[in-house]
């Protein structure tokens, strides 16, 4: 099988039999736009992962691992196939282009990622918190966000994170 990403000019891998594209931040929106032209017309999901405590994940050559990864899952009805787009987003500058123009349905999903990870989507029309209250501090799904824990009074018990 030839590399599926070759025709779009981005690195790609197969993960458990599923095609994954690894564009850089500048080419992320353009790739989703190209894929949309190629028939991947439905944006099923936009989510993110904070790789703060797991930096050594495997990525194709040339893709530099950053703290955050925004993951978009696209679907093509004709090919009956999903593809995944994983874009690296640095922790110091968590900004990525919004897909709202291409896929209006990504609005709520990007708001959720903003709420949970603090990643800003450029061009999103209404980037407010969606699940947490407006005045909440912090972004809960980040790995350095403390989880509430009842202290256990035993020797050697793990402390609160």
């Amino acid at each position, binding site marked *: 099988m030839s590399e599926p990403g070759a025709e779009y000019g981005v690195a790609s891998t197969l993960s*458990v039999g599923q095609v994954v594209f690894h564009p850089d931040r500048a080419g992320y929106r353009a790739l989703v736009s190209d894929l949309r032209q190629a028939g991947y017309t439905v944006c099923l999901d936009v989510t993110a992962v904070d790789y703060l405590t*797991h930096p050594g994940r495997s990525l194709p050559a040339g893709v530099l691992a950053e703290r955050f990864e925004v993951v978009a*899952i696209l679907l093509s009805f004709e090919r*009956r196939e999903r593809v995944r787009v994983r874009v690296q987003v640095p922790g110091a500058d968590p900004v990525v282009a919004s897909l709202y123009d291409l896929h*209006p349905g990504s609005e709520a999903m990007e708001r959720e990622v903003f709420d949970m990870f603090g990643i800003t989507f450029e061009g999103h029309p209404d980037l407010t918190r969606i699940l947490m209250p407006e005045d909440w501090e912090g972004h809960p799904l980040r790995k350095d966000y403390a989880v509430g824990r009842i202290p256990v009074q035993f020797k050697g018990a793990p402390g609160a994170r």
Partner: protein
Amino acid sequence: MATTDVYPGAATSEGAQELAARDGSTAAELLRESGSVLRLSEAAVAALSEQAVPEDETMIINMGPQHPSTHGVLRLMLELEGETVLRTKPIVGYLHTGMEKTGEDLTYLQGPTNVTRMDYAAPLFNELVFSLATEALLGVEVPPRATWIRMLMCELNRISSHFLFLATNGMDLGAISMILYGWRERDLVLQFFEKTSGLRMNHNYIRPGGVAADLPDGWRDDLAGILDALPARLGEYDSLMTAQPIWQGRTQGVGVITPEEALALGTTGPILRSTGTPWDLRKDMPYLAYDQVEFDVVVGSYGDVFDRYAIRLNEIRESMRIVAQILDAMPGGDYRVQDKKVTPPPRARIDESMEALIHHFKIFTEGFRVPEGEVYVAVESPRGELGCYLVSDGSAKPYRLHIRGPSFVNLQTLPHMLRGGLIADAVAIISSVDPIMGEVDR
């Protein structure tokens, strides 16, 4: 927060998440909140913005989060002109309990207990999608009997979930007797679930590696009883609702959405199928053993509330067809994979073997390690594509667990479907989306 009163809760506001007054909104915001989905020409935008509505003739009201017809804690801010809905903004998050974060702290064996509480009307689908994702990363294949048991339980769950919809949808529109009928029929299925898994909801029955227990003795008779009882009762629904002029008047032509709009919004499930798009993962991207059973994908043609009701009613019939075929085709064998890494030893062995006890203890305390990787798996839940994005760092707990709840995405159709309709129709439309807030907020 700046203002802390005697009761801190009294000052709680969703602030910028709320719907702003008309004079405080830009044209683009107004367009979005009135549910425009597809790109309009500039002339059309100009025409829309010229339709000036006097500020003092509209009002913004809250519907929910405690409104009985919002199916939980959905809050809609509606701008009304008289009884006509101009703009809508759904505000969610009232049921957010951080289940995705919790999932990062539970082992893969504990995972189904967590995810099963998301879509509480269709808990088995959550367990299924989590288990399929874990198994994909592990690379284990479950025995055929486990696959068929999963399929059987999921189809029964689809039936019970759709009965819940029919009950609440009927009640929302004034067919009060439907809440009793729907509950009565749903209970038939829930009793079978209780017999099989020990619980009526939140079963933790489908687990990575198979299912928790084999089907109970006499399961064939139980299911035959259910399959015998339901057709006549579905016929009653047809005469009570489908063929009834008041019901048709309340639902036909209400809350219309076109296929293009539904696709742009990422909608799946009965809402997408009501627009005439025959997309059903069971048929189009088969998982489990759906390619070995016969059933039809029910589609509508108008994309209105009536179509969505009729689709769910008839999907119950299709699910019954599948259940009848599973009754004939259920293979023998083991109900879980015999892989010592993921499968605890049989209960009887624990009493007689120290090794089995240690094995059992280690599996339930430490769990099993899952190879590094990431995967996205989706199944067709009663509400649409239910996906699970799972990232493993090689430890015994997921590094990241994300559930794509179909209700969360489908809610985005509300501003579009409500625009221009009456406030009384809003109740019908919300109900026809069939949102489960546990899944929306997670």
